């Protein structure tokens, strides 16, 4: 009995030493407390996956909701409350076309579902920029910088970005080829969750996960999962997932202005 306990204690001690050694290795790579002097790696250097380049929407489902302006009152699959339904039911395409602001359907809760192309690129070592040709919108993902206080709300809001492990590791750098980009967007000015006047409010937040994978045939895909939370208009978070396919260059890049009556 005593011998068995001794064996167990030895095993636990060995496990602790292994974990400590792993931490020391991670710290040696500049990730943990007590790391050697020097700046932490930039977001660009720490990127476990390369999201940069040109991507094109692949509309494989709900194209009648994405490729066309849905009819008034089509808010199927959206967890709206009564107030939101009332607003959606009062939407009028003719009035929407006449409004000076044509970009209400191009905010973060809806922009990724809008068919078109993306260009993702680094503007500095800690800032990733996402441009869309549909609506000619720009989203800025800031790494390691909290949202500045007192800023006025904007259509694209403020997007705080981080690399996130998909393996639940919790320690050390994220191995190359794994992980995903997480973006949390706040301070948005409100707009349309669906192009036919379904609203989201200025209290909404969007949590997004950008992940990539490559098929055996060489096609590389970007999958964007968006979770919109809106205490004013949604009864529960609304989740959607849209795929993009990587394309070699900017051929076909076709910047268009925002349009209330066109689904791009």
């Amino acid at each position, binding site marked *: 009995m005593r011998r068995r306990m001794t064996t167990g204690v030895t095993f636990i001690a060995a496990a602790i030493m292994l974990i400590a050694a792993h931490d020391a290795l991670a710290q040696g790579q500049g990730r943990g407390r007590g790391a050697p002097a020097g700046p932490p790696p930039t977001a660009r250097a720490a990127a476990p996956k390369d999201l940069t380049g040109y991507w*094109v*929407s*692949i*509309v*494989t*489902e*709900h*194209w*009648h909701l994405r*490729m*066309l302006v*849905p*009819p*008034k*009152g*089509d*808010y*199927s*699959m*959206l967890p*709206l409350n009564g107030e939101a*339904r009332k607003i959606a039911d009062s939407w009028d395409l003719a009035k929407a076309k006449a409004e000076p602001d044509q970009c209400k359907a191009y905010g973060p809760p809806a922009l990724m579902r809008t*068919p*078109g*192309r993306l260009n993702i690129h680094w503007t500095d070592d800690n800032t990733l920029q996402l441009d869309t*040709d*549909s609506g000619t919108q720009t989203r800025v993902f800031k790494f390691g910088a909290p949202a500045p206080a007192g800023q006025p709300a904007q259509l694209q809001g403020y997007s705080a970005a981080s690399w996130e492990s998909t393996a639940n590791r919790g320690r050390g750098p994220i191995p190359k080829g794994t992980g995903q980009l997480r973006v949390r967007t706040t301070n948005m000015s409100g707009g349309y969750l669906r192009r*036919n006047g379904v609203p989201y409010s200025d209290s909404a937040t969007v949590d997004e996960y950008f992940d990539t994978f490559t098929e055996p045939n060489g096609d590389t895909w970007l999958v964007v999962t968006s979770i919109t939370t809106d205490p004013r208009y949604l009864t529960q978070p609304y989740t959607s997932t849209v*795929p993009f*396919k990587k*394309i070699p260059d900017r*051929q*076909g*890049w*076709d910047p268009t202005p925002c349009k209330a009556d*066109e*689904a*791009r």
Partner: protein
Amino acid sequence: MRLLIWIPVAFALAVIAAGERAQAQAPQASASKAAWPPKLEEPAPGEVEILPVRGNVHVIIGAGGNVTVQVGEQGILLVDTGTAAMSEKVWAAVQKIAPPRKVLRYIINTDEDPEHTGGNAVIAAKGQTVPLREANYTAGPQGTINYNRASVVSHQNVLNRMSAPTGEKSPTPPAAWPDNTYAIDQKRFYFNDEPVVMMNFPGNTDGNTVVFFRKSDVISTGDLIDLTRYPVIDRKAGGSIQAIVASLNKLIDLCVPESHGAGGTLVIPGHGRIADHAEVAYYRDMTYIIRDRVQDMIEKGMTLPQIKAARPTRDYDGRYGSTTGQWTTEKFVDAVYDSLRK
């Protein structure tokens, strides 16, 4: 005019990715402008439009119900004939699709609705049945066969509802009746170099037929799918919401998507645009969700007026709902309730 979003399949599916559309249009920007945005309205009243679907199969839109046309070496086959008033327009469109001197051999009726069978009498008379017997043969149970008419094929229940016993007045004239029926799960023949499989998928009635062109990989569903409104449920003719859900599930099993749930098998609905696997699944989901909501309300003891007031269809009304016309949202809820109550 009812807004009907329909898109030529060559556009809708070949360019499922908007970006691929953009990519395709880049070298010829001016040409692309004509392709986008797509046409959103049905043909003007009294006019029809022909859309190629795939392989031997086309569809004529604007004649009431959609009319599917399969043409080939052996002749012409139609699925449904549209309304009586549009018969000549439909026949003119068929002649544009078919090569010269090809003969109309078969008409398949998906149900007995006048929007699908109204043109039977006029259009069947344009064709000829394949003469398998001598012209004066009368010994068989069918007696003399009129070969100077295309054969009209349907489920037996469709004939039963279009006709009447001898001496009684029938809902439709004998010239419009099917002359070739089936009463089992399916009827098949090989025509124009492809298998044509007719399957009894009860839904709107107990006599619905779905037609599968196996080589072209196109399915003509009749009113089992109606992308312009909620599915019509004829309770007196054996239709029910349960049957619609069950048959839509079977239809999904027949559809094979090309990639990521979309494309692949093409589906011609009874009304509305050409669809695919994803579209059928969305329509099935709608019927499922509304069925479950009404069922739940019934189980809670709610009356029909209370169920209507609760608007179980609310989030789909913008796309499928109607307060006017022959098939309103209220009638649909009545039929769903009646289906589930018993």
